[in-house]
């Protein structure tokens, strides 16, 4: 009985901060991811599949730790994390290491970090804290300050240049402002202003970024260059048909026609081998996470928790939509991995931290009731 009690106690400690529906869904996604990564790495070596399992395991531990942190603690960490992230971003701009023509990495002595990844979490964390603090006396000026806090890090990341991550950081912060209730009129005005700004911003874009837009409009203009990615990934997905060609048997995937097939373009491999049915299943799993995330946000007890959970959930959607849109040829090519599917430790870690936060919000609400 004692043993049983101990076991129950341990199980309770392990699971009480976890959210059942989210847990089940991410485990299914992790299983699909490892399966597809194995196929995308040629189907004859376990290196990448095992690496991906390791990534999930590490991320799971971190997620558990985050889930066990109360939203109050998270709120206290908001400013330090943001300041560290911002300092690192400025450090990158000044001392950063350049790889593949992009200055994204910073050597901090014991490790080489990519500070823009930290910003993906730090940004919504800070803005949620800010709106929480200003809750009682929210003015238009607060939106302006929030906008400034949002734009500075995003611009720094865009300058690296890393358009994909800049978009994700910006949208994460934007979702907080949006959910905090920025008026529709202002949103509309901002949208109009952004549209009007395109002709002015356009000349400042890098050639490769412009090329990606041209390529989206007509991939056949450069079939061996920038258009190659989109052409080959749409061929892969289209040729998969309703049920797919079957695991390990997609010719586009196995014969190397799909570029970046285990990372950014893994959806093409998945679409070719598992078809429309697989694609719709993936959309459904994402919808479960998003739906559950929004539910947690709506039931959250504080403004901070609400805004943070909501923004993280919408960010998750943004990841998925930008990636699938790119791979299926309806959005330009930007380097955004498919959430919980693409091979890569950093992306999975930051996504699991986000889900850990959702779980924290979901399981801590009675403790912070006001």
């Amino acid at each position, binding site marked *: 009985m004692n043993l049983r009690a101990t076991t129950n106690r341990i199980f309770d400690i392990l699971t009480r901060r976890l959210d059942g529906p989210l847990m089940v869904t991410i485990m299914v996604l992790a299983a699909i991811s490892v399966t597809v990564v194995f196929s995308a790495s040629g189907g004859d070596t376990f290196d990448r599949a095992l690496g991906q399992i390791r990534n999930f395991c590490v991320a799971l531990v971190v997620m558990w730790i985050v889930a066990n942190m109360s939203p109050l603690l998270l709120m206290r960490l908001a400013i330090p994390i943001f300041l560290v992230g911002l300092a690192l971003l400025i450090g990158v701009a000044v001392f950063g290491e350049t790889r593949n023509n992009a200055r994204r990495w910073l050597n901090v002595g014991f490790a080489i970090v990519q500070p823009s990844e930290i910003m993906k979490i730090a940004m919504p964390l800070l803005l949620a804290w800010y709106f929480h603090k200003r*809750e*009682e*006396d*929210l*003015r*238009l*000026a607060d*939106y302006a300050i929030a906008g400034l806090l949002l734009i500075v890090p995003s611009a720094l990341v865009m300058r690296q240049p890393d358009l994909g991550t800049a978009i994700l950081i910006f949208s994460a912060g934007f*979702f907080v402002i*949006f*959910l*905090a*209730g920025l*008026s529709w*009129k*202002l949103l509309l005005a901002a949208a109009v202003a952004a549209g009007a700004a395109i002709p002015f911003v356009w000349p400042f874009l890098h050639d490769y970024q412009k090329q990606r837009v041209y390529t989206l409009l007509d991939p056949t203009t450069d079939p061996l260059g920038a258009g190659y990615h989109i052409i*080959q990934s*749409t*061929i*892969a*997905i*289209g*040729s*998969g*048909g*309703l049920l797919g060609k079957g695991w390990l048997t997609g*010719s*586009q995937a196995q*014969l*190397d*026609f799909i570029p970046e097939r285990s990372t950014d373009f893994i959806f093409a491999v998945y*679409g*070719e081998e598992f*078809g*429309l049915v697989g*694609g*719709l299943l993936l*959309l459904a799993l*994402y*919808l479960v996470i*998003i*739906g559950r995330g*929004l539910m947690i*946000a*709506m039931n959250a007890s504080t*403004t901070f928790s*609400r*805004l943070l959970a*909501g923004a993280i959930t*919408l960010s998750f*959607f943004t990841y998925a*939509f930008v990636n*699938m*849109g790119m791979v*299926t*040829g*309806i959005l330009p090519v930007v380097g955004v991995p498919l959430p919980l599917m693409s091979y890569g430790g950093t992306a999975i870690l930051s996504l699991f931290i986000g889900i850990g936060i959702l779980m924290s919000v979901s399981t801590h609400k009675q403790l912070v009731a006001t």
Partner: protein
Amino acid sequence: MIGTTIRNRELEINVFRGRALFAGFAILIAFSVVAARLVYLQVIKRDHYYTLAEANRISLLPVVPNRGLIWDRNNEVLAANYSAYTLEVTPSRVKNLDAVLEELNTIVEIQPRDKRRFKRLMEESKNFESLPIRNRLTEEEVARFAVNRYRFPGFDIRPRLFRNYPQGDVASHAIGYIGRINDADLKRIDDADLTSNYRGTDHIGKLGIEGGYENELHGSTGSEQVEIDAGGRAMRSLATTAPVAGNNLTLTLDIKLQKIAEQVFGEGRGSLVAIEPATGEILALVSKPGFDPNLFVDGIDPQNWDLLNTSVDKPLLNRALRGAYPPGSTIKPFLALGALESGKRTPQQTISDPGVFRLAGVAHYWNDDKAGGHGLVDMRKSIVVSCDTYYYQLASETDIDETSKFLRSLGFGTKTGIDIDGELEGTLPSRQWKSNRLAKGTPEARKWYVGDSISAGIGQGYNSFTPMQLAHATATIANDGVAMRPRLVRHITDVATGTIKSTADLDINKPTRLALKPENIAFIKAAMAAVPIEGTSARIFANSGYVSAGKTGTAQVYGVKRGEKYVAGRVAERLRDHAWYIAYAPADKPTIALAVMVENGGKGAVAAAPIARAVMDYYLLGKKPDIAKLKTPDNEPQSDD
């Protein structure tokens, strides 16, 4: 209002819920768009993309047939194939080619010569083609590259068949060579509707047998359906259609005889064509200087190309077919035959040769080669001593159009029909020809004068013929007036079926009996047979051990002013006379007929006849020439010519 302070907590939660629901709705729409896109790609356009994916995956690779081999009449190999590895690169797939080549050099040696040749290939070819950068890699180099291949995208090692000409520059003009297909070749291939058969082939016969018999040698290209990866590398074979190897050719050439003939020429420029009179089979076809056809197989490098192309000795010119020279006195037996046939002369008719020929009412006079003349000369003597005055007179009495017509029947001024390309017709003058030639001149200038006939009467003036034409006409006389089309290919072996097709059976190679009286031919043959015994080549043919027939010729390049004596030593080498000798042997039953021409060699009896003797000695007696002894002092006037 914008910026209204929200104090009400319930209201704030409601705003949040409203925004979250709105977002949720937007997400559903966005995911529906993705789902709709998936339905469009995977259901509506599935077949289209499936076809594209299959086209990506499956490639029809040509399987190049083995090129036919070439042997001489005694089965000595003249052209063969060998397999070797080449390192190839597709320039369009390499960004900084020079830097990459530098790096590559640490693994596979790339010499400056290879680079120069590669540059040249690049200029000539399309950018997406795979071009060889290094040929004949060693096993070690292949292994080293294979390990480092990932560092060099766009580079690949391929096994290729190479052509090898083991005889080097011997018979190079007859055998020809293969070289990379250029734009002109492509157009010909396209016009002949052979494009699909040349997929994967990057070499084509350019000259000689390789060029003329390209259709026989090439074979038909097979194909292999393979699955390829994105890099274009074949992963596995799906289906194969085997290629059919090209046909093997057995030539009429006797390469040993050819070698002797080329040796005898030494460093000199000139040509020799030896024919078997009864069949028209060409035993030797020499054009000196030659070139090494092996240089062309890998794509010739610019240095060697310039050397060959700009040399004053014109090594790439096939003098046997494309060199037209005044025939000099070698034309005399043919003109004599014409005079017999037309009845202008009888064998017995004599003329008196005072050493000079004058024409009534013309101030100009024509010197005989021998000062003081040959005295009384009949037709036989005119050939034996090569009397100019006899032929001046004959020419002055014969209409040029009649002469022209007769010579044409012997093949002068027309293509002999040899079975390789590029043969020239030479120049056989007539009234019409001169009028056309000087079309821009005054009517006076375009008129044919009797003086023109007289120059032509000793093989000077407007005449110019190829060594091939002289050899062919000589062979026709030797064969008693039965013309045989000269040919280089004896038989063609179909490798697939093993059947052997003799070219003698082709209609085009059937004998043509010329309308000549046998007694006239017999008379000319007898006169020619006297030349090596008592005539102009008697010294050279002393103690030959067989009876031959021949005629010397010395063709002027440099116009000697009247009254001036031609002295070889005083004339620049390139302006010296061309030396000729035509011959056949044995005189009674000829097995070989030939024409020798030594460019700027001087006297035919001195420079050309010894070559003819050496070749016939070897062919008839198996006697190898003593090369050192052939180098006789060349301007010693041994006899009139």
